[in-house]
């Protein structure tokens, strides 16, 4: 809002919005406009979310009975493998960066597009190519290794389409690397005049941090999966103990990527929540630099904690102790963020809208997931709950309760900007609460199950666990309703006659709210010049919300 007067042009002077600019299919599939590519990603990841959710539904239905009546043993393995692979690589990792990040990074720093627009389109096509290969895996019978591809199961014993799955994930990595590269260069080289590093929105800081992980961690997964594929095809033996190879080496390499990948999934969410909280509180963020550098600290320390996935692998106790310490240390920057959001909300005149409800839900679930993460970082507790539902519940609190909730919050918050339409706020609030309640009913019982000893990846279990499993499955049904609701009222808002969004429906700061909703093709009519600090509330010209 810092420069709003600059952009108050009479309607006839306005350029057509990026959506109205052209309507041909060609103008969508060969677009280099970051905003259109963001929408292409939104449609594609929603598709994959549906497939991954379908697999989750099969899992929860099967677990209703202790005998596993719905699926065969092999079918159950394939269901949770497809669920994990699709949700991690084809939904969660691209979700916030490639949809919201793609749309917002150039607008928030006041430029026309990402630094390499054609590369951006290429990364969508690479993603689609890898996605099609994954769909082929799904229809050809799936894969039974779990999303972790542990050797020697994946390299020798698994009987599904392992190589095709590995190639799909391998290809999707290029899409991720190109996106990260594009974000880093854009943030370094294309900031508007006056947009200094100290004036960057926190959303940008978290995307900068996640881009570093994209670029440095993804290639390690690529080479690791290449070695697994070579192992499976020609038996090169690097991970095969029969040849003197080391299966633990696989775990080290895999988690060197995959633990940072957890931060790939949660860092953009942290950025989204910082925006939602400040906009709802109409206050400057408490401790800007702490929140900004916490993102960088998480990215850096996140590279040094992978060994906490291997406490029971037989690695040296000294290594385990160091990894345990570092894993506890990485909680500090996460906690700083939570405290600073809370301090921002303190004594604020808070607007209780759907985005804030999602953000508050995020904070609660992220704290629960984070604290149980601390428990898992303790060597003694971890040995007790390794490979149980406690771990499953913990990472779902972070990845689903955290990242997916933040994604939904961000989608609601920026929906008016992306589409130029206002959604039904009442339905939005109901969905936010439904998701929070449904999520907790689904996953809280899994903490109890895990602590009592229910192992993960088993579908036949002792009858005494059935009550908690049934509660969890019922919660999942509620959660599904919560996730399905936005699909209807958000799409409903797009119908002819839907309410038009003003430039700044939330009365929020940030350059994206100074341009029209939806923005013109080049984002701004004139090059913005930034003269104020970020989150410069109260706004000089507070815009009124016309949404009762």
């Amino acid at each position, binding site marked *: 809002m810092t420069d709003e007067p600059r952009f108050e042009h009479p309607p006839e002077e306005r350029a057509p919005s990026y959506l109205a600019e052209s309507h041909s299919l060609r103008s969508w599939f060969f677009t280099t406009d970051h905003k259109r590519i963001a929408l292409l990603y939104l449609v594609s990841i929603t598709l994959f979310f549906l497939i991954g959710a379908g697999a989750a539904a099969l899992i929860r239905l099967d677990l209703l009975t202790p005998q596993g009546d719905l699926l065969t043993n092999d079918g159950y393995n394939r269901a949770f493998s497809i669920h994990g692979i699709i949700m991690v690589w084809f939904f969660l990792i691209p979700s916030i960066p490639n949809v919201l990040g793609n749309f917002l990074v150039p607008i928030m720093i006041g430029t026309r597009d990402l630094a390499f627009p054609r590369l951006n389109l290429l990364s969508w096509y690479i993603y689609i190519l890898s996605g099609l290969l994954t769909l082929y895996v799904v229809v050809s019978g799936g894969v039974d290794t779990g999303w972790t591809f542990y050797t020697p199961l994946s390299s020798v014993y698994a009987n599904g389409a392992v190589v095709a799955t590995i190639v799909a994930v391998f290809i999707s990595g290029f899409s991720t690397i190109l996106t990260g590269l594009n974000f880093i260069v854009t943030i370094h080289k294309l900031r508007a005049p006056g947009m200094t590093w100290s004036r960057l929105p926190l959303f940008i800081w978290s995307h900068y941090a996640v881009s570093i992980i994209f*670029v440095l961690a993804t290639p390690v997964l690529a080479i690791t999966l290449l070695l697994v594929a070579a192992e499976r095809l020609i038996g090169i*033996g690097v991970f095969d103990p029969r040849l003197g190879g080391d299966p633990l080496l696989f775990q080290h390499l895999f988690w060197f990527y995959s633990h940072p990948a957890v931060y790939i999934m949660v860092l953009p969410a942290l950025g989204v929540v910082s925006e939602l909280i400040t906009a709802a509180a109409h206050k400057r963020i408490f401790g800007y630099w702490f929140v900004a550098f916490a993102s960088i600290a998480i990215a850096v320390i996140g590279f040094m904690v992978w060994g906490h996935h291997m406490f029971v692998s037989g690695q040296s106790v000294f290594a385990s102790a160091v990894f345990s310490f570092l894993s506890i240390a990485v909680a500090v920057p996460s906690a700083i963020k939570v405290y600073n959001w809370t301090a921002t909300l303190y004594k604020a005149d808070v607007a209780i809208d759907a985005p804030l409800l999602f953000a508050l839900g995020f904070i609660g679930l992220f704290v629960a997931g984070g604290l149980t993460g601390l428990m898992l970082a303790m060597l003694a507790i971890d040995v007790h709950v390794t490979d149980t539902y406690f771990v499953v519940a913990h990472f779902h609190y972070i990845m689903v309760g955290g990242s997916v909730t933040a994604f939904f919050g961000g989608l609601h918050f920026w929906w008016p900007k992306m589409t130029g339409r206002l959604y039904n706020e009442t339905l939005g609030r109901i969905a936010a609460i439904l998701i929070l309640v449904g999520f907790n009913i689904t996953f809280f019982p899994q903490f109890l199950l895990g602590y009592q000893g229910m192992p993960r990846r088993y579908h036949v279990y002792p009858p005494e666990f059935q009550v908690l499993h049934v509660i969890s499955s019922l919660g999942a049904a509620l959660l599904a309703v919560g996730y399905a609701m936005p699909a209807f009222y958000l799409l409903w808002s797009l119908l002819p006659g839907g309410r038009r969004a003003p430039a700044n429906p939330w009365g929020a700061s940030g350059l994206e709210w100074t341009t029209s909703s939806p923005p013109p093709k080049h984002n701004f009519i004139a090059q913005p010049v930034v003269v104020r600090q970020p989150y410069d509330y109260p706004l000089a010209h507070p815009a009124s919300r016309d949404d009762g």
Partner: protein
Amino acid sequence: MAEGGVQEPFARAARQREAERLGMLIFLASEVMLFGGIFAAALALRLEHPAGYVDAAHHLKLWLGTANTGVLLTSSLCAALAVQAARNGQARWAACALWGAVALGTVFLAIKGVEYAGEYREGLMPGMATTHFEGRTQQLFMNLYFIGTGLHAVHVTFGLALLAAAALNRGARQDRHAMLIGNVALYWHLVDVIWVFLYPTLYLAGVR
């Protein structure tokens, strides 16, 4: 790549050049991490089988690897000279130096091919009918050797295509900022640097 013209979303050519260079460097950082996995595997192998690793490395043709190191370093020198020539406005020299780099890179691949052929005859290539190893560690080592040098050779081939494309591109040769040639040369130097680490890891480990 920029051929004098400024492309969306940049306003100034100088800023666009900075962005392209930064983009290339970030890409190379990810390439380093890719090969990092190979080096980690080699390190683990050597830690677990110190004597067997040295024995297996002893079977590689040290003199072919050494010759190839010289060839690739010289090729890299040619690429560096091409950048300097383009900056000085000597488009002809830039083209000559680029073709020199291509020629030496091709020699590298040819020597590598001769080496692979020899290893195939000795039955050291994995997955072949004639394959027979002296021991498990040699099998592991040779497999890693083929993965590492093979992945490197893929990068060499890709780099040769880039060098040739730059040499054929008149605009790139005449660009006093040497943007395209500079970025291609950076990629070529990285291919070189990776070899500089592969050579001691695989070949020099066998020197007794």
